[in-house]
């Protein structure tokens, strides 16, 4: 189920895995692992930003620029995950791998934004970061 979902998600943009002989390594391991890690890490980063930095600790990192920094750190991690996954599973590196990393990075941006919108309300210091919408006072 999760495998199908993430495989579908990545192959939607990437097409079928290359080199083709590693198709099920991608589908059964790399895609779901990467997808899950992406979701969990992004969630963790968003929680870190909104609930740790800007609720428990109140570090003062509430500005949009700080949010963007977190977004970028998350993007870098998101770029690295596929490369690490591919490497650890003994899959040949291919230009597909980098396309995959790139797509994952794009997804990380979308996901980080989504999680931010969903979770920012719970933050004391940064619930208006990156913008007030959709929360009302």
């Amino acid at each position, binding site marked *: 189920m999760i495998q199908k979902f993430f495989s579908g998600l990545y192959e939607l943009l990437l097409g079928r895995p290359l080199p*083709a*002989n*590693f*198709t*099920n390594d991608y589908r059964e391991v790399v895609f779901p692992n990467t997808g899950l890690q992406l979701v969990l890490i992004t969630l963790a980063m968003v929680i870190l930003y909104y609930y740790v930095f800007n609720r428990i600790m109140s570090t003062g990192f509430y500005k949009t620029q700080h949010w963007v920094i977190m977004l970028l750190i998350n993007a870098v991690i998101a770029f690295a995950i596929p490369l690490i996954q591919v490497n650890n599973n003994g899959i040949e590196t291919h230009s597909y791998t980098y396309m995959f990393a790139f797509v994952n990075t794009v997804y990380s941006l979308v996901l980080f934004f989504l999680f931010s919108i969903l979770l920012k309300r719970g933050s004391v210091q940064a619930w208006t970061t990156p913008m007030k919408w959709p929360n009302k006072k």
Partner: protein
Amino acid sequence: MLLTRFKCSASFLLLCVVVVLSGCYTRNENSAAETEPAATVEQPPAADKAAPAATPAPEKVNVNLYLEISNGMKGFMPPAEAGKEPTVFQSRLNKLISEIQDGRYVAEKKYYLAREDKQGQPVLDSVSYNTMKSTVVSGIRANVLGTPLPDLLKAALEQSVKQNAVSVIISDFIHGPHPDKRGQFISLDSDIRSSLKEAEQQGLAIAVLADASGFYGNYYPAVKKPATSRTLTGEEVPFYIWVIGRQQEVLAVTKNIFRNLPPQQAYFGFDYKDVPFSAILKANQFRPAGTVYCASRNADPCTAIKLLPEKSIPVEFTLGLDLSALPRQLQQENYLKRNLKVIGSGCKASLVSVTAADDAVRASPDLARYTHFLRLQVPQLIGTSGTITLQLPQVQPAWIDAWTTNNDNNPAADPKKTYQLDKIIDGVQALYRDQRTYLFNVTIKFNKAD
């Protein structure tokens, strides 16, 4: 001009949209169809795991050696003299019995001299190693009539089955029926078949090794005209060593005890139910081409694959086979290339090449299990699933015809021929014809990739 360019780009855009949409659609369809084959793929690994471990070659075998000592055999074993070379027969046999007696691969050994008694019944005299050795080295002194071939084989086989031993039968296999039973010339093949029936029933296999040796003395051809006998001085006459026993034991004997096999070999009743094999899809030495991947990620060996050949990119991949259990001769790349049959069901498939493992391959742990690598090409699928089967048929070796004659009356003029050898072999072949068409049979399943 500008307008047409616009039209072009617009239609291109439209095309893109169509492609994207259709891509989405087929994806969904495929993923729906995917579930079923995926489930069936799960089971092969468990079954295949046991395959490489099946019936290991026995450490030691029991061997009964039968040497025919009719008058016709005397010429192979001339008495030794200083300055005279031993015949091929003598030296080969000497090595053989020495290996049987003192080699580490033989447990129980028995030596028999086969002859005919006064009533025309075959007699197997159990002798000691020394007697056997002196017989080979010094020749046969007594006047012994030749035993009819079927009877000899039957008697020897019965003896060995009783003692649970591999029979090694050495004879010139010149069929000399009793003058009263000339009809046996006609029924030679069926007689051979009858005499070896027990071998077939016991599930035994037969290896026939042929060699020729210098012959000194009286030669008694099967065809008695124009001469009933001829005196030869070193002309080459064929002799045969038949090894009959369980497949593994026969292979153990041919491999460990004979050491140096003559090039003329024929194997009957050999059957490899479980030839270990796997699609090799991830090795650097054997990169596949096109869309092909193992149906199950962790399957080892991989016996089910998914593939999707396209017009421009046909699928090509390698199948690794462990043929180490096969007789050496049958392991040769050329032999396999010539005789292997690829049968695609649900697809078109062909054999591109056969490669034996080289040192680089043996160094790679994943590949070291396999001795041969077959490159297969699948340019087109016909169904969404199917099989690709590789078969190695039982083929009658070419040398058998070459060593066959219908008139052995003058071996000097027509050397290294045996009277009606093909008939003898036919008889053996007939024994196994019905159930053993193929030496081995390997089937790999495939599904169309989604």
